[in-house]
């Protein structure tokens, strides 16, 4: 059986600097994978390559058996490969309700309609309310994004991803910039994601990673140096060295 999502020998370099070096990874429906690594390991570049915001120098990305390497970002989204952003990318002058409605309409290929208003579509409004409610944003649905707190903006990022009904979800540091006290909400949201969805989450917060992921992939200097269960990761020699800044030595002996 072929994987839902697979990356084969992905490579990308900027100038002489190799940021993604021969990375391969496969995921099945329902997988919860965390991608971790020290600063500058190339995690965000990897997400950008997978999502189609960057073009790889070589290698392939497959989704549901289809090679999507040549497809533009928007087309990958329409096939169910959805991403969130490390720094929220939201429309400052629109409300959460509008955000989610737009995502739903886009998913249903109705966003090109040049008349009517989403509030006139009960099925859209129901879903909008359901999603906002689930994430505790319903109280804020008519405020402009610039008026709501950052933690709530992060939740809205997740809401948008959910509204797009992903098959494969890339979460780029979903809790970045949010105070510890508020991460609970975000974690709840992550736990309530549909079970058959494959999720690849990037994060620094090890507590969150260990609670969420059933598999951990460690990236260092653009290379996968570990792929296994959360309990093994802290024991791994190379991972320790990577985080302790000794990777160069370890690499030469390996």
């Amino acid at each position: 059986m072929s994987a839902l999502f697979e990356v084969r020998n992905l490579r990308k370099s900027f100038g002489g600097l190799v940021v993604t070096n021969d990375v391969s990874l496969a995921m099945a429906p329902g997988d919860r994978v965390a991608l971790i690594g020290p600063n500058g390991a190339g995690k965000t570049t990897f997400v950008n390559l997978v999502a189609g915001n960057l073009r790889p120098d070589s290698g392939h990305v497959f989704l549901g058996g289809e090679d999507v390497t040549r497809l533009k970002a928007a087309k990958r989204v329409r096939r169910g490969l959805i991403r969130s952003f490390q720094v929220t990318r939201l429309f400052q002058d629109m409300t959460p309700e509008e955000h989610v409605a737009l995502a739903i309409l886009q998913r249903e290929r109705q966003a090109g309609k040049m008349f009517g208003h989403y509030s006139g579509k009960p099925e859209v409004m129901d879903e909008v309310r359901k999603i906002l409610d689930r994430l505790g944003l319903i109280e804020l649905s008519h405020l402009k994004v610039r008026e709501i707190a950052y933690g709530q903006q992060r939740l809205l990022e997740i809401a948008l991803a959910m509204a797009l009904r992903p098959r494969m979800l890339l979460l780029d540091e979903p809790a970045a910039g949010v105070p510890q006290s508020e991460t609970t909400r975000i974690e709840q949201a992550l736990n309530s994601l549909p079970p058959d969805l494959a999720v690849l989450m990037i994060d620094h917060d090890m507590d969150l990673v260990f609670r969420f992921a059933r598999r951990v992939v460690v990236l260092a200097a653009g290379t996968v140096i570990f792929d296994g269960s959360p309990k093994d990761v802290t024991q791994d020699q190379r991972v320790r060295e990577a985080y302790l800044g000794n990777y160069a030595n370890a690499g030469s002996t390996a």
Partner: protein
Amino acid sequence: MTVASTDHSSAANLSIARRLADGGLIGALAIVVIGAIGYYLFPNNLALLTRMTAIALLVLSLDLVTGYCGVATLGHAALFGAGAYGAGIAAAHFGISEPLTMTLVGALTGSAAGLVSGVVILRAHGLAQLVLSIAVIHLFHEAANKASAWTGGSDGLSGIMPEAVFGLFEFDLWGQTAYIYGLVLLTVVFVALRILVRSPFGMLARGVREDRIRITAMGASVNSVLLRMYVISGAVAGIGGALSAISTQVVGLDSLSFTLSAEALVMLVLGGTGSLYGAMIGTMVFMWFEDTLSAINPFHWLTIIGALLVAVVLFAPKGLYGSTAGFVSRLRRGRG
């Protein structure tokens, strides 16, 4: 901070009346009322008012791409001029002089010009985009100058004799027909645009202006949104051009000029980008100013227009409408 969240359920179930109002009924009413006031206040100056209406259509069309989608252009008159020449050539060379048909032809040629300039201008962003738009308008201008057999070249295209509207209302010296025809066009276009900017597509366009990457991450193609908007914008500008051709019965190269493009941009920013009201208010204020000042002292009005622009940037940076609306909503919030 969270005052407005109390009535979300009622707001979500917008009543039909409210939706109609949001759909532009108030705006349409305002156009009709202001139009009627203009008619009775300046019954002998309808030609200027008609011209204002035609230019308002151009500025509205510019607002669609600049205000709603964030495209920087100094070449938007290409769309207006294409509409004007389209309608004019249809009348002068092909005998299509029924005003509604001429308007339709203008809208079509305007859209075609929108498609062409969109394809070129959307290849870059920011400053490079401005320069592309300048190149486009100069190419259009030069092309019309060269094709003088069709366009009359620099002498202008004359011989446009529009028939009476519905065979009843003649376009004459006093310009009532032209004015009312223009006002009806403006109202119809306004309502249509009001529906458009509130539609899912309108939301998508605003999204493109604010964050292209997010729009892509929602699965929409930025360029396709922009190009479609450009075509619509072309139709609106083309209707404006056709109105100009019908009401003045002549089309000149100035309708495809950099100057007109720049003036339209100035009017839009003056009124406030990203709002249909801003576009219309900017047009009205600028043209009224220009007309009054140049009648009082044709020799030095440019200085005063310049000073006005500087004053707007300093004291009303979001444009006249944008800044007033912002002020009013701050006042309200202060009380609430």
